[in-house]
């Protein structure tokens, strides 16, 4: 009886030792993995910083201004002016639903041509209607 007890205790100790070592090695593995991931995060973060800096550099106002001037023929961009503000009342109401034959087109009363629709910006449409 006593022998069995001793044997069981010894086995238990061995089992626990095995478990403890196992956990230890697992922890070390995880730590190595964590270090790798941290290094990876660091290098990615560094890359991200470079990309952000590059984005900010490419989008610096001086450069954008020059690009706008260079591409004036194609884009025709001008600084925002007070005259560009409009009021909601100036936007045309959508035509009554009965008049609609094709699919709904941006709430404008323009004829939809056989499903193929050319979208025209609202403000331009309104301007053409103005006297």
């Amino acid at each position: 009886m006593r022998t069995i007890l001793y044997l069981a205790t010894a086995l238990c100790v061995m089992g626990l030792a095995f478990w403890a070592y196992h956990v230890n090695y697992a922890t070390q593995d995880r730590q190595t993995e964590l270090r790798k991931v941290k290094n990876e995060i660091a290098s990615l973060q560094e890359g991200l910083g470079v990309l952000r800096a590059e984005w900010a550099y490419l989008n610096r106002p001086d450069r954008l201004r020059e690009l706008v001037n260079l591409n004036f023929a194609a884009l025709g961009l001008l600084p925002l002016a007070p005259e560009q503000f409009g009021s909601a009342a100036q936007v045309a109401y959508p035509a009554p639903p009965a008049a609609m034959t094709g699919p709904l087109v941006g709430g404008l009363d323009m004829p939809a041509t056989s499903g193929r629709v050319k979208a025209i910006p609202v403000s331009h449409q309104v301007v053409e209607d103005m006297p």
Partner: protein
Amino acid sequence: MIRTPLRPLARILSARAKGENPDAIERENIRLRGEALRETARSTAEGRLFLMGLVFLAAFVTVCLRMATLAGTPAQEPQGNGLGPAILAQRADIVDREGRVLATNLVTHALYAQPPMMIDPVGTAAKLVKIFPDLNHDRLLKDFTTGRKFVWIKKKISPEQLQLVHDIGDPGLLFGPREMRLYPNGAIAAHVLGGARFGQEGVNSAEVIGTAGVEKAFDGWLRDPANNGAPLKLSIDLSIQSAVEEILAGGMKLMNAKGATAILMDVHTGEIVAMASLPDFDPNDRPRPLVKGDPSDSPLFNRAVQGVYELGSTFKIFAVSQALELGLVSPTTMIPSQSPMTWGRFKIRDFHNYGAQLSVTDVIVNSSNVGTARIVQMIGPQKQKEFLGKLGFLAPTPVELSEAPTGRPILPAKWSEISSMTIGYGHGLSASPLHLATAYATIANGGRKVTPTLVHDPKHHPGEQVVSEDVAKRALAMMRAVVTRGTASFADVKGYQVAGKTGSADKVKPTGGYYNDKVMATFAGTFPVTDPKYVLILSLDEPSTFVAGEDRRTAGWTAVPVAAEVIRRIAPLLGLRPDPTTMESLDGIQLVSAKKN
């Protein structure tokens, strides 16, 4: 265990037969038993002591071993959770109020040499000079060949240069990683940002420290790892700052000014949305400060904060506001305005003679020095000083720039009656344009004191009431009249109901007295007057323009048109809708795109 009886029968019987006392046997046995018991107890105690000694020995050995390992192994930083210092950049970014990057870090390399490890010092020196033409060949050769152990060659090199140096292939050339400060927008907001340089330098890293501007003022904060890499959010708006600088530069050129400054401030929070000072510089390549001459000639000089000037007639509105607040006058009170006005041995003159008397509103509209001096006389020097103190004119501005304490206002040595009269129309007290912006914001927001700040804070704490809301409203109405029918008529931007005041102050000679042909032209204004949102201060240093047949230097002809253009450009960017009632061209949406449809 077989227990020995104390009175064994055999021995008792034989003792009795011999006539001995059998009790002696019992005593002897008791003694023997006691001795045996003692012996066992002693050996048990000995065993325990031995065990105890072993335990202590083991404990001490463990401690000793641990101490030996700790002493014998290289130190390792404890690894906590979260991002380690290696991951976070060492200096936080600076962003504008929309989160656009104003200052960030870029990883680069420093180049150094260990001449003892070099194979071909002479050839290496020659090749290095080819890559970096600014290096001195003889100096490099001397460093490499005279037995120096360590030589810094370049503090920052680009990846292309790194590759070229790699291609030299000399093992004595080594690289150290560096984080360098980068200002991607170049000269935009240069004076606000300041600049940075390397502090303590090692092979593996170098600390970056701020040298001026917010970089220096927030140096500790930017380097504090406790912020977990959070960027510093300024109140500056990059697109507005850029537009203001562009227009200001154009205006400065057009008006032949030698310097210019502009400040745009939120009237309620005191947040500076744009602050420009020209000429400016590129913080990526910060010029050296001047060692002699006037510091204001250096592009490093921040005219908006460091430059203290007599700001001229822009001060008149403070005298009038105070008189209104004290109940001394109303906007229609008539004030004697005969020019020149004689006071002791002093004479106060107006630009034109405006007749015998003017209403208080017209004193402001026509910018009458005499009228203002009369109003200041009613207030008295002591009260005037107190009021200007409340508006912040007696101390440097508390803005978060390292240069702010140097922008100390110049006050008269003795605040006498005549100096109070001249201060009333902006002479005799020098203050920075930022002081003026802060004071105008106080009037524009309904009389509450504001603290100028460069940091964006969504929470806002209203300041103390300096003038009543009613007085502020009346002062604004007067400033509106200056624009509609007074000296700042060019500032009437359609749709934005600008209110403001011009100031053209003769510049003070360093030798004493005033220049005849050098002025500081300032426009101080707020818009829209119905519900003021922003204050704009724009100053031109020594402007002069030839308009309508004569040379013009006054602010109405120089600073005001530039300020109007600034407002016309930035108000839409600030998201302010023009007021349709003052916008006659707003009958329909106009097609402003230049593209042909």
